[in-house]
């Protein structure tokens, strides 16, 4: 996107006709930036510039959890985009993944072992990537949503959100329980 941006009209690249993005909307190439962790915060610098405190947020947290990341400064203002974690050094990549895991506390359900009903309240016993837990959902049909095909989110009674990114990838027993529910 940083190359010549005059309207050349090349059909194969729709972005080419766009005016150059302002500096805060640019793409940060893995080679140009470096991250480090200072006590509880993530810091970033560009080239040999200043280290500054940043946070990394997902632009498409459901469909693209590992791509399309925005880097924000400590005032939540946009610094730039990371399109992919692929190009980063393994140790940098680990740092970024860790930061995402730190920021996004939404557990991913890997298996459902039981669903118990008490009145309008369902209690799900589930295994998640953060450990076993049981979640209490009221009004199940309203609280389980399918924002993307096959991707379910479940909101429990306390406002926590759980995800099932691939419904079809659950084991058969979990799927059966889920099918009975919604």
């Amino acid at each position: 996107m940083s190359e010549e941006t005059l309207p050349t009209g090349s059909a194969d690249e729709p972005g080419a006709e766009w005016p150059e993005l302002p500096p805060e909307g640019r793409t940060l190439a893995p080679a140009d930036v470096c991250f480090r962790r200072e006590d509880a915060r993530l810091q970033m610098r560009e080239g040999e510039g200043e280290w500054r405190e940043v946070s990394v947020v997902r632009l498409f947290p459901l469909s693209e959890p590992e791509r399309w990341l925005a880097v924000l400064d400590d005032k939540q203002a946009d610094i730039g985009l990371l399109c992919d974690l692929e190009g980063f050094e393994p140790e940098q990549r680990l740092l970024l993944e860790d930061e995402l895991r730190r920021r996004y506390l939404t557990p991913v359900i890997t298996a459902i072992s039981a669903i118990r009903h008490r009145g309008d309240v369902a209690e799900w016993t589930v295994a998640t990537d953060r450990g076993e837990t049981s979640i209490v959902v009221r009004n199940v049909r309203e609280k389980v949503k399918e924002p993307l095909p096959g991707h379910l989110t479940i909101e429990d009674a306390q406002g926590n959100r759980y995800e099932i990114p691939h419904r079809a990838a659950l084991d058969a027993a979990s799927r059966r329980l889920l099918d009975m529910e919604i």
Partner: protein
Amino acid sequence: MRNDAESPAPCPPEGFSPDEQVRVCAQADLLPDGRFGSEWLVIGEQHLWVIADGDGATPRIELPLDELSDATAQTLVGGGALEVSRNGTHIELVRYTNARAGRFTTVAGALGKWLSGEEAEVPEEDEKRCPRCGLPLAEGTKVCPACLPRSQTLRRLALYLLPAWRQALGLSLIALAHTALGLIPPYLQKPLMDEVLAPRGEPRPVDERVRLLGTLVLALLIAHVLMSGLGAARAWLSAWLGNRISHDIRVQLYRHLQFLSLGFYDKQQMGNVISRVNQDTGRLQEFLVWGSQDLATNLLLIVGITIVLLVMNAKLALFVFLPAPIVVLLSTVVWKRVRHYMHRFFHRWGRLNAVLNETLSGLRVTKAFGQEPRHIDDFSSRSLELAISGTGVERVWSILFSGMSLVMMLGTLLVWYVGGREVLFGPMSLGTLVAFLTYVGMFYQPLRFMSMLLNWASRSLAAGERVFEVLDTEPEVAEAEEPVAMPEMQGRVSFRDVSFGYEPHRPVLKGISCEVEAGEMIGLVGQSGAGKTTTINLICRFYDTDAGEVLIDGVPIRDIHIEDLRRHIGIVPQDTFLFSGTIAENIAYAKPGATREEIVRAARIANAHEFIVKKPDGYETLLGERGQGLSAGEQQRLSIARAVLHDPAILILDEATSQVDVETEKGIQEAIDRLVKSRTTFAIAHRLATLKNADRLFVLKDGEIAEMGTHDELLAAEGEFYRLVQTYQDISAVSAVQR
């Protein structure tokens, strides 16, 4: 998360005993690495500690308070983290999910104050869990639907029958009589066969048999006439009772919905609320009226027929009872499946409705972007889904019915065979067999019903619970115990350190303090999302503050009689809302008895008169839903007229003239200027020129008042306001303001 649910763990945990007084202890539900688990944050007089589960003796973190500063509750997605600073470095103390976020936000606030040497109180933790089962309670309710005994719901439902108990009792009696009568005709078949048509042994004389035939047929006729009469009465009375009850529940629910706070609607999807009013009350009616009757009559049938069968021929009766357990079992099993399919069917039905509703209301946008085919595809795939699941329901039903009929037919065939042998070789008469078979046919029906009844009842009780859940939700913004009546209001408004967030742990306003004199005109400016509308919402008391107080004329707003408060506040909201009806009705919305003169005057002030007179029907022009038929600016002017006619002590204009042209705005402005002389006015506008007459401007930034003062002062200070003026490139506004 219920790791800590069953029995609240002691806080501080066992094994940890500090030498100093503990000021607060809070349990977190995540470990430092983000997995579920318990940790405790304990704050004492001189230190704070973080204690890991099962290791009370050696805290994971121990810090002296005098080296710390800045306690913040970081808001993360799905939870948060509590951090403090020590010599400029950040230390993360604990992490927690949303379930604990409210608590830790409070703790962080108090810790921050302690660190800077101030006093602070941490209130006891608000128990948001059911004391009996530990399930988290819904916001604003005190009853736990899981713990609520079913019988209690049933009793509550039965109360709706109370006002019409005579009719209800009458209905039950009629239903029982109707059912009992139904048992008679088959019994008459026996003498008809044995005495009249195919007598065994020595037949009676023919004329006697003819007389008996006449008597029996007459008896049958009477029985059927009575049954028809009772049946009609039963249906009519049921309809009467049912409609009456559902009317009662519906109105009660609607009344309650009208008084619930806006906070309730923020958390609920409107579609769900509507379905509670429509579907759930309907389901309740059905159950209350038919459920009780059917239960009674079917029980009567089962018991009655069992006795009759046993009396007629005990041995044969056993063959009838043989398939009974199979029928019960089968219908229970199959019903479970059916229920699942039905659920899905209704769910998809709802989704299809939602798509239909949304896409048709947004048709203008659809057409503008040429996306019709997409919506057609979407609709057709949803519709197909519905069709498939509808077929599924039918398939299961049909299997259930055929299977059931087959099993029942087997029982009947058994009776035919065994009974037939009895007739041929035994003492049994043909009449007994025929009557017997008729009873057998009547016997399986209620059995099948009883097995479905359980599910039906539990579904209806669930509907009842959902309705009661709403009814039991108390308005968060509630009338004070001893409200202060305020027949007159001067309009002095004070904010004292007010903090507020729509969700408890995401503050939107952070410590707002200001004093507004009666009659002052205040302009609220700030970027989009700064919290201007939110501030206004607090003045109207649509929401209650989380911390601090709003006072009007020196009285805390929580103590003011709500009706008085609303009578003295007039608001032109940011998004105009007009009801269907005439223009005059809409202007007089807040004052239904307003005279024509008042209405026209208000319209004149709002510069609406000009466009209204151009309409063929003038003030009686009918508006469609949401004010359809008027331009956005026209709608806005009606909204202003409405507030003007309300004649409030405090007038609030939230972007009230954002949709009108500059000239019209000027006209409105001048009229309003005359109007605002005697009243306190809060005006919000992005077009800064609109606020040129304001006595003072408050500049909001990120939920705080960044600046206060007159235009000139603020411009001279070259601060936030100056920057706003510049960035809006509102040069003309600047010159107008400076004029």
